[in-house]
């Protein structure tokens, strides 16, 4: 609900301080304390001009370049480093700040190393899912093999991601970044009311997919508080930790999918790319319930070796 008028300049302003001697001081102090330089936050100043904020003390003041020894000013040329965070921060004098910067760009560094010339960015460009699906469908309709070739174009060379739904956050400023189209399908697991979505295009094999799903559904997080969570019954989670492998038949659960014809099949029998073009949604099914699938699968693909789950 909107309050009546959003006056931000209320009488009592709260500045949140990390420590007592914080760099961002309250309205009382108008000049920086020497000790403020030292604090644990660190300052990634990076030497471009900062402007002193003076707003009658309603907002805390950020220390400016004037307050600190001059640092090399950053050129804002686009050919600056590939890291997405402030390249200029590397010239900061404080090692702590570099640590902070590093912390912030940890994922950047990792993925730069891992992804080489291609990177994957979730949700960019910002086009809504229904619009993208509609475009995919139009491509499908236009050519029988068109979709497969489209898939080839869109899949990036190294589709390594940690999790299905969270892409690597970094972006390389090399101009070569390949924006990969996502193909989100729903995943439900027996016994868990809330489903998830996984980006099929972020995986290049059944193994990767299974790993993601295992992480999503089967891994217990140590501090899960059942009272606060609608999604998990703690008992279910404890049971699940016993089983870990979804694809090799050793767990209490099997991974199944619904294909375009509406049939439910065991995952793993067809080549990965063919699977991608026919999967509509996934279900992690109790093994006891999955017995019905086997005969039908056998009928349809009597030549395939079922034990060839990767």
């Amino acid at each position, binding site marked *: *609900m*909107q309050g009546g008028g*959003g006056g*931000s300049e*209320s009488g009592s302003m709260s*500045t*949140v301080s*990390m420590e007592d001697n914080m760099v961002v001081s309250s309205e009382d102090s108008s000049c920086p304390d020497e000790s403020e330089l030292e604090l644990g936050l660190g300052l*990634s100043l990076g030497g471009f001009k900062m402007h002193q*904020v003076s*707003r009658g003390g309603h*907002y805390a003041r*950020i220390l400016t370049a004037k307050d600190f020894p001059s640092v090399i000013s*950053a050129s*804002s*040329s*686009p050919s600056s480093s590939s890291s997405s*965070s*402030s*390249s*200029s921060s590397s010239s900061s004098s404080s090692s702590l700040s570099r*640590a902070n*910067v590093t*912390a*912030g*760009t940890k994922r950047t560094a990792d993925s730069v190393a891992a992804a080489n010339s291609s990177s994957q*960015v*979730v*949700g*960019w*460009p*910002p*086009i809504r*899912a*229904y619009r993208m699906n*509609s*475009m995919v469908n*139009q491509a499908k*309709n236009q050519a029988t093999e068109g979709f497969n070739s489209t898939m080839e*174009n869109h899949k990036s060379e190294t589709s390594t991601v940690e*999790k299905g*739904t*969270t892409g690597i*956050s*970094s*972006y390389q400023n090399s*101009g070569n*970044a390949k924006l*990969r*189209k*996502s193909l989100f399908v729903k995943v439900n697991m027996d016994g868990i009311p809330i*489903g998830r979505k996984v980006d099929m295009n972020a995986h290049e094999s059944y193994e990767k997919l299974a790993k993601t799903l295992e992480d*999503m559904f089967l891994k217990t997080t*140590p*501090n*899960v508080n059942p009272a*606060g969570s*609608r*999604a*998990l019954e703690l008992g279910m989670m404890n049971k699940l930790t016993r089983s870990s492998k979804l694809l090799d038949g050793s767990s209490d659960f099997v991974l199944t999918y619904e294909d375009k014809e509406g049939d439910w099949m065991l995952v793993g029998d067809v080549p990965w790319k063919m699977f991608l073009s026919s999967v509509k949604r996934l279900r992690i099914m109790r093994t006891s319930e999955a017995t019905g699938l086997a005969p039908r699968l056998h009928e349809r693909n009597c030549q395939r070796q079922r034990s060839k789950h990767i």
Partner: protein
Amino acid sequence: MHKKMAFSFPDEVLEHVFSFIQSDKDRNAVSMVCKSWYEIERWCRRKVFVGNCYAVSPRMVIRRFPEFRSIELKGKPHFADFNLVPDGWGGYVSPWIEEMAGAYPWLEEIRLKRMVVTDESLELIAKSFKNFKVLVLSSCEGFSTDGLAVIAASCKNLKELDLRDCEVDDLSAHWLSHFPETYTSLVSLNISCLGSDEVSFSALERLVGRCTNLKTLRLNRAVPLDKIANILRHAPQLVEFGTGTYTADVRPDVYSDLAGVFSSCKELKSLSGFWDVVPDYLPAIYPVCSKLTSLNLSYATIQSPDLIKLVSHCPNLQRLLVLDYIEDSGLEVLASSCKDLQELRVFPSDPFGAEPNVSLTEQGLVAVSLGCPKLQSVLYFCRRMSNEALVTIARNRPNFTRFRLCIIEPKTADYLTLEPLDVGFGAIVQYCKDLKRLSLSGLLTDRVFEYIGTYAKKLEMLSVAFAGDSDLGLHHVLSGCESLRKLEIRDCPFGDKALLANAAKLETMRSLWMSSCAVSFAACKLLGQKMPRLNVEVIDERGPPDSRPENCPVDKLYIYRSIAGPRFDMPPFVWTMDEDSGLRL
């Protein structure tokens, strides 16, 4: 005291005056004048708007406004549209429906955006509100056609059923047949999001035929072209119409049928749909083009020459959504033909291709900004931009209220000078003094935020991605943008300092979203601890944030003001930072 009361108006008079005040903002202002106005206003407020369903509890709303007839609720953050908010995050409408079902038998209208709606909730709506009239579900999910069937069967006074951009479980197309034969009150039906391959055409035709007040009908893609003529024949009074798939074998009889039926639709002002367009069938709509004010061709995969022909027939167009197939040349024609244009959205036909597939550049936008004096709202996807173009656009069109530019490749510099686009966007905020919404893209440093903080005083919503150099950027925005309500940021090097320094600002805003930035868990905890009226939620699928060092950045952060306290319906990957400065899951 007594003297004062003698001079004040009787309640009924004030109520009557207030009844002319419809806008939510004005109503809120009225309620702040004095206690008695607050009391009178709350009893006569008929429409309630809740911009964030977690900012307030259903019970609080019902307690304050005992007699509202219409409610609008919004749930998930905007970036949920781009899959940045994991499934299961929240935004459930059922607690609201349950509370209202008991308290409000006379509720008439429910409008929801980005919320999770279940079939049970739809059933509860159908059963509880006897005079229910309007259901608008925008970008919602969680329900199926079974729930729609109950609505259809039970809501005798339903006037509007709008399912724009929803994700519906299509279990059966026969839900449409659940509208009883006696039901005739439909005014607006939007089922364009439905995917089912079988639509009961006969049920649809009968429904359309007996609802003589039908003004808006948006069909889904499954409705074939040759069925449209029959449907339109039953509803020549339509004002807004969305086709299904606009493709068929080219047959003269189908064509002339279609053209004939369009000619008889004298009231038609808005057209949409047009999936899979076959250009040969486009001229069928020429008879209505001269009256069209709104045209959504954003699914029409036709090339520039066909688009140009079409657009040239529509001199009264105010709103155009189109794919970048229109190209710069088409936009130039648009600029010369459609002088009433107010809103333009150009979507990319091949956003993931490495090379541009069409000749659409910044020039198209420049042309439109020059030729269309009433243009105020733009959403434009392109692959290159220059500061020069942006400055020109800003100078041409200072009346922009919404400017959303998406240069497809992140961090793309000015293609002429290779500089950042700071100056260009700076010009936008400087010249467009009434700018309410801005989306940035391209290579941007902290400087652009300095411009925004300095000039964008009316800005209410800002979207930022892959931009900035340091906390200073965020600080400029938070400290300078006085009207800011919603700020959403992804992949920017903004960390703790600016956030903590401007903590109080966050209470004046609806919400702040930051993902893939550099805000540490420690800062989140501190914020949650010190700001009891903010809900600070950390979304992290890697596991609990306290399993990592405190200075580690969180994956996603969503902060919003709330008088309802922290919520309890969070999934396991969302943690709320509260006053105990510990984790609440």
